[in-house]
C-alpha cells in the first residue's frame, strides 16, 4: 500500500533520463512553482511556529472566558475539508468579500498572498498541538529555582522555557511545512493557478497529468516526495532527541 506506489514513482522518474528530468524541473514555470511552494511553506511554517507557540502558551498558562472553545477550535483546519477552506478563504479575500472589501490590499485571492493565507490556515494546528503538551509538562520548580537564583522572568523564558520547547516547536514547524508544501485543495481554489505567479508545485503536477504529461508530472512529484521523506526523517530525529531528554 505504501512501498509499491513509492517504487512506481521512482521507476517512472528514473525512466525519464537525466537530461529530460532536468529540463522538466528547470523550466521557468516549474522553477517558479517549486519556489512558491517551498518558499511559501517555509514562511507559513515560521508564522505558524510563532503564533502557534503564543496560542499554546495562552491555552496552557492562563485562564480566560472561552478558553475551552478556543482549544477545540484549533483543530478546525484538520477537520474541515480543504475544498471548503478554499472556497471560504477565497470568498473572504475576494474584492467583495468581508476581508477583501475592507481595503484593496487585503483582496488577496488570485495572488501569491492568497496562497500563503490558504497554506497558513490548513497547517495552523500543528505547532499548537506539538507545543501544548510539552508546556503542560514543564515543572514549575525549575522556573522557580531559576528565579530564586536571581533570573528575571525574561531570562527564565529565554534560558529555561524556550530550550525545553525547542524540539516541540521544530517538530510543529516541520509538520506545518510538510502540510503547506503539498497543499492542493484550498490552494487550487484560492490561487487561480496563474503560471509564474500563483501556480504551486502540486497544482503543476495536476495540470501536467491533465495534459497527459505523466513523466513531467512524475519528475516534479519526485522532488516533492524527496522533500516529504527528508521532513519525516527530521521529525524522527527530533522525536528521538525529545525522547532522550524526557
Amino acid at each position, binding site marked *: 500500500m505504501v512501498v509499491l506506489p513509492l517504487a512506481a514513482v521512482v521507476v517512472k522518474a528514473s525512466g525519464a533520463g537525466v537530461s529530460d528530468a532536468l529540463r522538466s524541473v528547470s523550466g521557468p514555470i516549474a522553477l517558479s512553482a517549486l519556489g512558491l511552494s517551498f518558499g511559501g511553506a517555509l514562511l507559513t511554517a515560521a508564522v505558524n511556529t510563532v503564533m502557534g507557540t503564543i496560542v499554546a502558551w495562552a491555552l496552557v498558562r492562563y485562564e480566560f472566558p472561552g478558553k475551552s472553545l478556543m482549544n477545540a477550535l484549533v483543530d478546525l483546519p484538520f*477537520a474541515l475539508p480543504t475544498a471548503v477552506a*478554499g472556497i471560504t478563504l477565497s470568498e473572504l479575500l475576494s474584492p467583495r468579500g468581508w476581508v477583501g472589501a475592507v481595503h484593496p490590499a487585503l483582496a488577496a485571492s488570485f495572488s501569491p498572498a492568497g496562497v500563503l493565507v490558504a497554506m497558513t490556515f490548513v497547517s495552523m494546528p500543528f505547532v499548537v498541538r506539538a507545543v501544548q503538551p510539552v508546556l503542560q509538562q514543564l515543572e514549575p520548580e525549575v522556573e522557580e529555582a531559576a528565579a530564586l537564583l536571581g533570573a528575571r*522572568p525574561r531570562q*527564565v523564558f529565554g534560558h529555561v522555557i524556550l530550550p525545553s520547547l525547542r524540539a516541540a516547536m521544530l517538530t510543529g514547524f516541520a509538520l506545518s511545512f510538510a502540510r503547506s508544501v503539498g497543499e492542493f485543495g484550498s490552494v487550487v481554489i484560492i490561487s487561480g493557478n496563474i503560471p509564474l505567479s500563483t501556480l504551486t508545485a502540486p497544482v503543476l503536477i495536476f495540470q501536467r497529468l491533465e495534459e497527459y504529461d505523466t513523466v513531467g508530472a512524475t519528475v516534479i512529484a519526485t522532488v516533492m516526495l524527496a522533500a516529504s521523506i527528508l521532513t519525516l526523517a527530521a521529525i524522527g530525529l527530533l522525536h528521538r532527541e525529545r525522547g532522550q531528554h524526557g
Partner: protein
Amino acid sequence: MARRSRPGEGAARPVVIGVAVAWLAVALVLPFVSVFVAAFADGVPAFFAALSTPEVRHAALLTCLAVLAALGFNVVFGVVAAYAVERTRLPGRGVILTLLDLPIAVSPVVAGLMFLLLYGRQGWFGPLLETMDVRIVFALPGIMLATIFVTLPFVAKEVVALLREIGTAEEEAARTLGASKAQTFLHIVLPNIRWAVFYGSILTAARALGEFGAVSVLSGNLIGKTQTMPLYIEQAYVNYQTTAAFAAALPLTLLAVLTIVAQKALARLGRRNGKENR
C-alpha cells in the same frame, strides 16, 4: 515572589491572551461564520434547492462510500499493523513506522499520481486490469483507494501509541495463566485498544470526508459519476454557483464540528477509562 518569578505573568498576560484570541478569531472564526452566511445568502429555500439536486445526492453517496471504505480497511489494517509493530519482533519496525507517516507528509496530488502510475491505463497493472475488465482509475475503486491511502496512518498510529503506553504486563499475565495467543488478543488487547480505535476512526472519517487532491487525480471528476462532495464544491464554486458551493459546504462544515466534539468527548472518556484500568 513566586508569582512575579514566572514569566508571562503581569503585563505580558493580557497581551498574550489578546494576540492568541485575535489570531484565532481572524484565522478561524471568521471563515467558519462566513460559510453559514454564504450558504443562506439567497435564502433558506435556495439552500435546500441547491442541496437536493441529483448531482449533490450522487456526490454525497460517493463520499459516504469512500468514508466507509476508508473506515473498514483502516480499522482492520490499523489494528493489525500496530499489533505487528509493537508486539512482534518484526525486522525494520522503525522503517515501517516512518513509512506509515508518509501518507500524511506527502502531497495528496503526489499520492494520486502514485496510484495512477500503478493502476492507470499505462500503469504497471494497467494491462492486467484491462484484460480482467476491471476499472480502478476514473471509477469508484480509484476514489476508495485514494481515500484509504490518505487516511492510512490514523488508526494505526493511535493504536501504536496506546499499545506502547499500556505495556505488556496484562498480556503476559494472561499468557502465563494459559490463554492462547488468540484468546489474549481477543480478551485483553482488543478491549484495551478500543478507545484508540474509535479515536483513530474519527480522524479517518474526517479526513476521508474531505479528501480532495488524491481523489481529484484518480476520479477523473466525471459529474454524476465519479464526483465526490469536495469535488462538487470546487466545481460549483469555479462555475460561479457560489450559493450551491456553500450550501454543499455547510453539511461538511457541520460534520467537521461534530468530529471535533466527538474527538474531545472520546479523549475524556478514554482518559477516565484508562484510569479505571490501572
